[in-house]
């Protein structure tokens, strides 16, 4: 007992290391048909599909509309334009070859700045390519800019990436005549259910999230293919399975980031930032509503978080979310916050180099002070707790050490971040005891690799004072819990865990009530100790199992559902550093050493938290030096497989050291903050700052290409 805060080994692992997981493609049903999608080869065109046996079109899925499946007009290469059904995947892909599609080319636009001119419409039904425009202002930015000692201007690009979870999307759908049963590689069964109900206008929908091979934001939304599968299985007398190929996945899903920032920053000769004025343009890709809704929120996150952990008194930011004829963008690990952190940390690095001022010193002169907490950043975000000065002081000796280690061609970089995590609006937990004493905990979240199941077991075991092995944790089936939100926004342990904590406390109260009846005592006279219930005076005791058994006889329900509402996100922060080697002959960049210090509030399981940091940091590093989703002038993705895209292997990945401090706790019952995205948020500017410090040239885009560096 006392599991919270300990590096408890994962309860998820025994099945997965034996190859006994059940991912969606492992599910088979009698008579199942395999579904594949014909995808647009044009960025923008009128489209006509010849209907033959086993071929369905947009008109069958969404009559009169081009979303989710294009009926008459396609707006990106990779958009589904037809559906085929066959007995297995081999036959389905044979059939794909035979589908006749006629295209009539329409003008298209790939660059968001061009798209903003509205000379070429991404889709004929749009009144404007600009989906969203929002202005954020605090103080008097123009006035302050005029008075600044120095002004720097520039443009930074945070390029398009592809989430690339190792398991693609995929789904199995079966309508049994009364109910639609839907299994999907998704980040939330409950959220997917709500979307399907809404699309179908039919409420008898059960969704199951089986084991999911990662997502990184790419499986939050309901994808066109999922809607199509649901719609078709309602009409057809057999179950359907859809599993895309990796190439299909890369051209059609998981695209994220893709934001640019034109900026002007004013600062004093001491390095104090006095004004930031800029324009953020986020590329939404084509107008698929589910994706646009997701990513436009991320564009706003970039704008709201652009001031970073710094107390910048004057700022003016215009944020645009713009359509282009490319794959619709969606959340990717960090969902808008990595871009914000990248932009401000790159700017701070430039100021540091400009003034020849130590990067920690520059930050110390700008960060929000502890006595300003909670701090309203003026753009609609409140940083709730923490000590930004102290964590920079913690970082200082480590940074100095790294500088000492840096020989010729080695450079050191640093970046700081503040995050927003633990989003609402609510989460659900159900904790129940079977009449034989078995404890079952069910979450409304949808873990897909993060190991929250283990953290939940730690929480429940601590509250009920039982061995962790006695707690079984489940999730991912709309039939087994009232409802749920999902796993994203680094919210699961904090928000889902708080629901779990409160549900467990209520279960414990009910078990005490049952013991009270057994011992003819008031609950106040009882003590809950080490999984036993003891009468404080008579010292008579009842075992937990007996109290649970008796509850059923006494008519006390031991099935507790707790809905935990959330109003505000909570803000972790940290400082990360790296030692990077740049080969000036070849331009090759290699991260040699990486060290991060984070304050994420109470750490429920340091082993899992560290695992999240290492995974996130590696994705952040990959953005800095390896990965980029590039398109040809014809609007075709050039990086549509895992060799062209730059997905790093164990050889490219460095050792990542992680330390944590617990200073700024959240107001949630768990006192924790999220860490799932922090690594990816901060690592990218750490590496680019290091490279910039080394090559002595301002770096405007990523990945840091060989040509640019040599």
């Amino acid at each position, binding site marked *: 007992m006392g599991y919270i805060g300990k590096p408890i*080994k*994962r309860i*998820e*692992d*025994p*099945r*997965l*290391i*034996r*190859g*006994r*997981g*059940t*991912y969606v*493609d*492992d599910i088979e049903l009698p008579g199942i048909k395999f579904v594949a999608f014909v995808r647009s080869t044009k960025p923008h065109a009128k489209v006509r599909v010849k209907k033959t046996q086993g071929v369905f079109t947009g008109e069958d899925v969404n009559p009169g509309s081009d979303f989710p499946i294009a009926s008459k007009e396609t707006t990106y290469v990779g958009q589904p334009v037809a559906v085929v059904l066959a007995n297995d*995947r*081999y036959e389905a892909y044979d059939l794909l070859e035979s589908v006749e599609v006629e295209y009539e080319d329409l003008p298209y636009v790939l660059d968001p700045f061009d798209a903003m001119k509205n000379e070429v419409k991404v889709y004929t039904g749009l009144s404007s390519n600009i989906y969203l425009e929002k202005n954020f202002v605090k103080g008097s930015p123009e006035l302050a800019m005029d008075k600044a000692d120095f002004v720097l201007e520039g443009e930074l690009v945070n390029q398009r990436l592809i989430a*690339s*979870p*190792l*398991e*693609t999307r995929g789904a199995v759908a079966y309508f049994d005549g009364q109910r639609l049963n839907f299994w999907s590689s998704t980040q939330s069964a409950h959220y997917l259910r709500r979307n399907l109900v809404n699309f179908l206008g039919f409420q008898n929908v059960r969704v199951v999230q089986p*084991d*999911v*091979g*990662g997502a*990184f934001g790419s499986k939050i939304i309901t994808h066109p293919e999922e809607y199509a599968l649901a719609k078709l299985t309602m009409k057809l007398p057999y179950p359907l399975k859809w599993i895309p*190929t*990796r*190439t299909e996945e890369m051209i059609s899903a998981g695209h994220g980031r893709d934001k640019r920032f034109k900026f002007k920053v004013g600062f004093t000769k001491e390095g104090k930032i006095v004004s930031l004025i800029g324009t953020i343009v986020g590329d939404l890709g084509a107008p698929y509503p589910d994706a646009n809704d997701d990513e436009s929120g991320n564009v706003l996150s970039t704008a709201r978080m652009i001031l970073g952990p710094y107390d910048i008194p004057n700022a003016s930011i215009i944020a645009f979310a713009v359509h282009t004829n490319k794959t619709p963008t969606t959340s990717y690990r960090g969902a808008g916050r990595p871009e914000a952190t990248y932009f401000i940390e790159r700017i701070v690095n430039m100021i540091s180099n400009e003034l020849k001022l130590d990067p920690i010193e520059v930050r110390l002169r700008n960060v929000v002070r502890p006595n300003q907490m909670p701090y309203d950043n003026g753009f609609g975000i409140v940083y709730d707790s923490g000590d930004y000065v102290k964590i920079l002081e913690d970082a200082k000796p480590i940074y100095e050490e790294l500088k000492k280690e840096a020989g010729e061609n080695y450079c050191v970089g640093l970046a700081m971040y503040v995050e927003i995590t633990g989003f609402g609006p609510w989460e659900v937990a159900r904790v129940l005891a079977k009449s034989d004493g078995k404890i079952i905990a069910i979450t409304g979240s949808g873990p*897909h*690799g*993060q*190991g929250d199941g283990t953290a939940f077991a730690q929480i429940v075991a601590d509250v009920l004072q039982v061995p962790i092995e006695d707690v079984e944790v489940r999730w991912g089936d709309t039939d087994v819990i009232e409802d749920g939100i999902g796993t994203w926004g680094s919210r699961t342990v904090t928000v889902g865990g708080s629901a779990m904590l409160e549900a467990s406390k209520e279960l414990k109260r009910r078990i005490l009530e049952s013991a009270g009846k057994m011992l003819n005592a008031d609950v106040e006279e009882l003590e809950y100790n080490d999984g036993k219930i003891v009468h404080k005076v008579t010292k008579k005791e009842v075992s937990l199992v007996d109290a649970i058994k008796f509850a059923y006889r006494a008519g006390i329900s031991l099935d507790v559902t707790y809905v935990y509402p959330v109003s505000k996100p909570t803000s972790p922060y940290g400082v990360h550093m790296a030692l990077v080697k740049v080969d000036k002959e070849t331009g090759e960049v290699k991260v040699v050493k990486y060290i991060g210090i984070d304050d994420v509030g109470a750490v429920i399981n340091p*082993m*899992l938290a*560290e*695992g999240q940091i*290492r*995974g*996130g*940091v*590696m*994705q952040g590093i990959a953005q800095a030096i390896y990965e980029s989703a590039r398109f040809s002038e014809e609007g075709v993705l050039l990086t549509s*497989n*895992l*060799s062209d895209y730059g*997905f790093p*292997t*164990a*050889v490219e*990945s460095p*050792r*990542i050291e992680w330390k944590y401090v617990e200073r700024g706790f959240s107001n949630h019952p768990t006192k924790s903050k999220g860490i799932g995205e922090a690594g990816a948020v901060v690592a990218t500017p750490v590496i680019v700052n290091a490279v910039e410090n080394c090559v002595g040239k301002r770096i405007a885009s990523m990945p840091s290409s060989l040509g640019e560096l040599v």
Partner: protein
Amino acid sequence: MKVYEKDQKVKIHFKVNGQDVEYETEPRKLLVHALRELGFTGVHIGCDTSNCGACTVIMNGKSVKSCTVLAVEADGSEILTVEGLAKDGKLHPIQEAFWEKHALQCGYCTPGMIMEAYWLLKEKPDPTEEEIREGISGNLCRCTGYQNIVEAVKLASQKLRLGQTPYQRQ
């Protein structure tokens, strides 16, 4: 020389995890699909260009990407998948080490990664960190950042050299 027509099914025989298996297949079918159809669903598919290694199995003592072998080519071979590693419910030291070192998150690369580690440690019982990283460079992982996998392979190498569990014979 046997010649098969395009749509003709071929009967093949191979050993999977020590058991004799008979399987009828089209010549074009990939070994990865055959193994999954036979119930070895721990063998995963992560890409379509032979990069990711999620489908890695041991075939006649060598680690191979089963997405890049035709099922008919595997006729007469001996194959080991992750399902065949644990014996009588007891985990193989590599599996234990992956659990102890938190070397998996979503678990999708894990079976292939474990099989590659199995092959690597047979080739090099005491690999350096660099050799481990090189040795698993055909196996992609999106979750872990690899470091804990490297630690797990190191731990497994110690466990195996201490002879805690002998390698099963193939």
